[in-house]
């Protein structure tokens, strides 16, 4: 899938994400999966650009300060793209790990604003796990 299509998919999924209800306090996040996909598919510069755009969308649809998630996702894309040079993208655990890394990066950005509590760390574990699992169908759809 080319970069433009990934950006369009990002736009669509961000809109859907904002309208999904939270289950047990956890909301499905598609954008970390797209950050992971970009980082493991495109060249580093393009991946960072896609991740930054995804973060900007997330910030626009959230009460957090604008730009925090964009920066966090951009850094995550940079890290994942670096890992992608030594890891095989086709191994199932690699996209899952990449999705979790992107979700954790977004959470760290939020923690800088809201602070860290025990409950927030527990929630982070759930968010990272769900983001990792969502990465598998997102990669499947984006690859086909």
């Amino acid at each position, binding site marked *: 899938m080319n970069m433009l299509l990934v950006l369009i998919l990002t736009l669509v999924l961000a809109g859907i994400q904002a309208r999904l209800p939270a289950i047990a306090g956890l909301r499905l996040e598609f954008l970390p999966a797209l950050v992971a996909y970009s980082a493991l598919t495109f060249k580093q510069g393009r991946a960072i650009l896609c991740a930054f755009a995804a973060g900007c969308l997330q910030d626009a649809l959230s*009460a957090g300060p604008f730009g925090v998630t964009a920066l966090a996702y951009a850094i995550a894309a940079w890290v994942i793209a670096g890992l992608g040079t030594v890891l095989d993208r086709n191994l199932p655990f690699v996209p899952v790990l990449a999705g979790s890394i992107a979700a954790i990066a977004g959470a760290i950005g939020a923690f800088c604003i809201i*602070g860290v509590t025990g409950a927030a760390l527990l929630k982070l574990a759930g968010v990272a796990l769900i983001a990792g699992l969502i990465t598998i169908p997102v990669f499947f759809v984006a690859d086909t």
Partner: protein
Amino acid sequence: MGLLVAGWIVFIGQPTAVATKLRMVSSQLSTPFVKLGDYIPIIKSRRDLDNQNRELRAANDLLRQQLRAFDATVAENLRLNKTFAFKERLPYRTLGARVIGRDASNWYKSLQIDRGAADGLRPDLAVLNADGLIGKITAVTRAEARVLLLTDPSCKASALVQSSREPGVVAGMEMTYVDRRAKINPGEAVITSGFGGVFPKGIFIGTIIKGRLDPQTGLYQTLELKPAVNYRRLEEVVVILE
């Protein structure tokens, strides 16, 4: 005779040219009798009943759908009536709005409403409904606004315990900075104090679940609150403009 019929059935089931021709001939032969069935009252009435049954089932499905839509409309009407009656009772200039989105992130608690700067909204306006305080507006575009919910730790409201008038600050559904000597009873109501300039005085926030001494300083009590509003089911809200 039975063997003959059975043989005939087996024979016409075979895909041979002879069988195909026989099947056509048999079919043509039986056609007048099928037509004849239309003139026999008992068969005709059965067909009519079948048709009528199909039509009634379709009508029933349609009516069920309409009933579901009607139920949803009645529920919405009740909600809107409640919101409107509440809006009329408030001694402020207010504006009703619909919730059109939730926060896209897992880390902040906010709502998106369908009114914006074009309707006179601006940051730091209080948002509530008939049940109690919901939060405040933090960002506004021309046609939409974002409401930071009181359950978000960064949304703070100056508050009072209604009966004892003990002051404190509510953030993330915890009331902090309550005097350590204050006697607190679970179930007591907490309302806004009117200090701070964002939330008007006397808006219901929630009820006290339990209190504990601040573990770090031991100087204050922190009260855990049960919110008055069901934040997950918000559909309409009221914004206080003045």
